[in-house]
């Protein structure tokens, strides 16, 4: 049905236009569904392949510390623990630093030109390949941290977190390298969400006699909170899934050790180390471990949404 317009400026839409319009809608719809389909397909494949291990070990897989391909006895507790702890170290260090950088770069403390260069440099951190981080970690970071680790052990050895002699590779270097790797994610997204806040918010706060500091802490960061949480969650996902650099630095010891100075392992690192020689039940066990990583990141994301919902009331 076309509506005739007496003025000659507009003409009825041609059939081609209508069809194009409709097909564009369908194309975008298809693309949106495709991404969900890919995700489900991967999850399904991992699930199917891990079924033998699930049937054999059940939930006990999560609580067992065995990883013995000879006896075909597998448990993922050390890797789950290592994944969570290394990611947690990275978050504890990277969130304050990253949000701090983001605040600094979204304010006009520096001339715009300098800020632009700094923003670019921070984002460049994300462009460094993972294996280069690993290499740098082995030859630069570990020697630096070893001295610090020895000092921690000698002075605070009574504290469980520092209760082992540092051996070089370990949880701490892995956590620190992850910190550097997720820093650009946290900084870039937090800065974007801070920079996109309406200037009226800042003016309102300043106009009420708030200092710049009060404005940042009480108004700007809460207003950008959902963006910052999003950044943190994305970073956490990256930290939990990061493989190469962690494998090179964590020491790949399949044991649970509370000390941060002791070597450990993560799920991602385990997969990278073992998939090449694995066969039979070991493949299934690795898939099972991968499935757990999948679920962990899924839980993290749901948790992030809940946090945002809770805070985003306003």
């Amino acid at each position: 049905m076309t509506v005739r317009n007496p003025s000659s400026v507009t003409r009825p839409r041609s059939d081609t236009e209508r069809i194009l319009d409709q097909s564009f809608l369908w194309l975008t719809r298809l693309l949106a569904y495709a991404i969900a389909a890919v995700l489900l397909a991967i999850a399904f494949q991992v699930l199917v392949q891990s079924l033998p291990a699930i049937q054999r070990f059940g939930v006990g897989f999560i609580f067992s510390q065995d990883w013995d391909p000879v006896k075909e006895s597998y448990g993922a507790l050390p890797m789950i623990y290592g994944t969570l702890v290394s990611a947690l170290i990275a978050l504890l260090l990277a969130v304050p630093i990253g949000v701090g950088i983001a605040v600094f770069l979204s304010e006009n403390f520096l001339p715009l030109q300098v800020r632009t260069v700094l923003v670019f440099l921070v984002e460049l951190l994300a462009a460094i390949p993972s294996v280069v981080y690993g290499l740098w970690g082995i030859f630069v970071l570990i020697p630096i941290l070893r001295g610090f680790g020895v000092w921690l052990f000698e002075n605070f050895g009574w504290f469980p977190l520092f209760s082992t002699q540092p051996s070089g590779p370990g949880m701490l270097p892995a956590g620190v390298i992850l910190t550097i790797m997720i820093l650009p994610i946290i900084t870039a997204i937090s800065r974007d969400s801070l920079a996109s806040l309406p200037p009226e918010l800042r003016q309102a706060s300043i106009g009420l006699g708030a200092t710049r500091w009060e404005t940042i802490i009480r108004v700007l960061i809460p207003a950008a909170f959902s963006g910052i949480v999003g950044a943190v969650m994305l970073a956490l996902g990256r930290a939990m899934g990061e493989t190469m650099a962690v494998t090179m630095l964590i020491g790949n010891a399949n044991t649970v050790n509370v000390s941060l100075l002791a070597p450990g392992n993560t799920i991602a690192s385990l997969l990278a180390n073992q998939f090449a020689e694995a066969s039979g039940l070991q493949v299934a066990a690795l898939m099972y471990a991968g499935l757990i990583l999948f679920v962990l990141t899924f839980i993290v994301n749901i948790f992030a949404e809940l946090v945002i919902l809770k805070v985003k009331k306003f």
Partner: protein
Amino acid sequence: MNPQDRPSHSVGSPKAASATPVLETRNLNIYYGSFLAVREVSMSIPNNQVTAFIGPSGCGKSTLLRCFNRLNDLIETFRVEGDLNYHGQNLYAPKVDAVDVRRRIGMVFQKPNPFPKSIYENVVYGARVNGYKGDLDELVERSLTQAALWDEVKDKLKTSGLALSGGQQQRLCIARTIAVQPEVVLMDEPCASLDPISTLKIEELMHELKQQYTIVIVTHNMQQASRVSDVTAFFNVRLTDTGKRSGYLVEHDRTENIFQNPKEESTQEYVSGRFG
């Protein structure tokens, strides 16, 4: 400063334009970088009156308003020359703390800009950052009542300030500003984004508020200026030699004089709607 402490002789007094001014400018030049945005403004803002700034776009009336509480400090290239005195104290003297100035001289903006917080938190924000020790609940009720919003929101103080209508948001912003108990309230086109009924409410509010506060309002709406203000300042804009637009004060006087019997021809033309 407690508004009740101030001398009451000027409250609503028709001759108050000649009483001790709260704010006074002398040969005030406002620059952005090397660009002279507003030139040679000499005027005074009388106590407990509504002063309206009118004039065509680009005449610098908002720029001048933002100088009064040093909000222009946020703009890097901004600077002033000349005197801008608040009770005889130059606001731009090096030892003056801009944060302190803003606690005494509040601002309501063109677009309602409540914080993404609850109504309650919006109102107490200024008090919190200023270290107010009194009863916050009472402060909220008093400020919202003064802003003629209490009855509409008293049952939903914990809901978001952003959930209110535009007119309510603007009254919330006024409540938020007067909760700090400033002496002067600056309003930068406070009704520009509001419907006529909300506008009317805010104009009535201004009549109430001037009992306690000195109000300076920038408006594009000449009827509004003639309705709410006691004193009107007309600003105009002229092209400089370099082709840039530079604002200046044409004249300021009692509002009825500006609208019925202005001294300058350009004022006459502007208020009668012949240009601008």
